[in-house]
C-alpha cells in the first residue's frame, strides 16, 4: 500500500493510501473531536464535530469520511471550526436533559469531556427540557433517553459487530429516539443478546450498566479493536 504525505495543522505527516484524515491525524497525535465516529464501526458523518478545512475546498469536510491525498493541506482547529464545535456541543447540551451531576458517567463522559476541552462553560441556547423516559426493563442495563445524543454508535455496533440489529432509530428530527425491536421495553426484546457492546460504545450515560451510582461507571471501548483485529487478522491482541 502506498504512502501519502500531507500537512495537518502545519505538521507534515504520512498516512497510508485510503486512510481517512481523521485516523491519519490521530496516528500523528492530532486529536480531532468526534462523537459519532468510533474505530471499528462504519461512519455516520452525523455529529459534524470532526469537520475540517481542506485547502482548495470551499466546503468543510468530515475528517472521518475524507480520504487522505498527496499534498493535502488540512486545518483541524481554526477559530471558525472551534466556534462551530462549541455551538454544536451547546446544541447537544440544550437538546435533552444532560445533568452531569446526577449521571452514572459523570467524569467519564465524552460529551462532558468535549465541553470542557472546547471551553463550553455554559450554554447560551434555551434548554428544551423534553420529557423523556428511562428504560430499566433490561436485567443488566439501562437506557436513559435524557442523555442520548443520537450518535447511533449503539445501532451500528449491534448491527455490524454483534449482528443482532436490536437497535434502530424511530421517528425523525427532534422526535428521533433509539428503539429496540418494535419499540417494546429493552428487557422484552427478542433479538437482544445482552452482549453489552452498545453500553460500552455509548459516549454518554444514555446506555449504562445497572447497579452503578453517580460517576461510578467507566466504559471500555478497547474491546472493539480486540474483536475487529481478531475477526480480520486472526490476532487476539489485547
Amino acid at each position, binding site marked *: 500500500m502506498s504512502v501519502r504525505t500531507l500537512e495537518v495543522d502545519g505538521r507534515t505527516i504520512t498516512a497510508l493510501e485510503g486512510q481517512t484524515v481523521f485516523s491519519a491525524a490521530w496516528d500523528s497525535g492530532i486529536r480531532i473531536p468526534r462523537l459519532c465516529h468510533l474505530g471499528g464501526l462504519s461512519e455516520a458523518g452525523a455529529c459534524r464535530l470532526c469537520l475540517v478545512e481542506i485547502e482548495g475546498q470551499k466546503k468543510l469536510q468530515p475528517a472521518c469520511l475524507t480520504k487522505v491525498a498527496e499534498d493535502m493541506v488540512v486545518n483541524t482547529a481554526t477559530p471558525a471550526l472551534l466556534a462551530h464545535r462549541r455551538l454544536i456541543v451547546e446544541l447537544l447540551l440544550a437538546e435533552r436533559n444532560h445533568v452531569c451531576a446526577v449521571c452514572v458517567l459523570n467524569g467519564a463522559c465524552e460529551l462532558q469531556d468535549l465541553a470542557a476541552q472546547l471551553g463550553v462553560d455554559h450554554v447560551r441556547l434555551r434548554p428544551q427540557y423534553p420529557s423523556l423516559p428511562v428504560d430499566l426493563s433490561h436485567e443488566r442495563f439501562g437506557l436513559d433517553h435524557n442523555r442520548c445524543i443520537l450518535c447511533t454508535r449503539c445501532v451500528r455496533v449491534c*448491527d455490524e459487530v454483534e449482528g443482532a440489529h436490536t437497535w*434502530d432509530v*424511530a421517528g425523525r428530527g427532534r422526535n428521533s429516539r433509539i428503539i429496540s425491536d*418494535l419499540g417494546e421495553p429493552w428487557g422484552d426484546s427478542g433479538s437482544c443478546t445482552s452482549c453489552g457492546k452498545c453500553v460500552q460504545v455509548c459516549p454518554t450515560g444514555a446506555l449504562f450498566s445497572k447497579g452503578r451510582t453517580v460517576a461510578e461507571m467507566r466504559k471500555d471501548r478497547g474491546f472493539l479493536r480486540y474483536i475487529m483485529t481478531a475477526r480480520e487478522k486472526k490476532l487476539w491482541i489485547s
Partner: protein
Amino acid sequence: MDEIPQTAGAAHDEREQILDRAMARHHNSGDALIEILHTAQQLYGYLPAPLLKKIARRLMLPPSRVLGVATFYHLFRLEPLRKHSAVVCLGTACYEAGGTELLEGLRQHPGSGDWSVASGRCVGSCGLAPIVICDGRAMARVTADKLEARLREDHDRGSTGTDAGH
C-alpha cells in the same frame, strides 16, 4: 394492540392474502419495505405492531428497522384512524390564508372526537387557499363557517358512518 385488527373472518383472510401476494411480487425483498407498508396500510387502515412484526419476518428484516422506517414517514399511521379525517393544508399559501386558525378551530371543535385532525404540506391547490381535505375530498377557500357547516353535516347524519375510513 396485540392482534392484527379484524373485521370479518373472510375479509381478514383476504387482506392477508393480498399482503402476502404483494410481498411475493417483490420477492420478499427488504428493498420493498416502503411499498409493502403502503399496501398494508391500505388494507388495514393503519400499521399495528403485530402486522409490522409479520412484515419484518417475511421480508427478513430486523423489527427495529421496520419500525424505524414506519415512523420516519408521515403518511404511515401506527394508530387507527377515527371515523372521519381532516387534513388542513399548511403550505405557504394556505398558511398565509389562515390555515393555522382553521386547524386550531378543528382541534378545539366539540365534535372533533370523531375526527382525525392533521396538518399537511401543500396539496398543490395554492390558488384556492386555504384548503382542507375532509374524508379525502378537498374543500377550497375554506372559512371557519364552511368548516363548521361540514362538521355539522356529519353530526346531523348521525352515526351511520357510511363514509368512514376513506
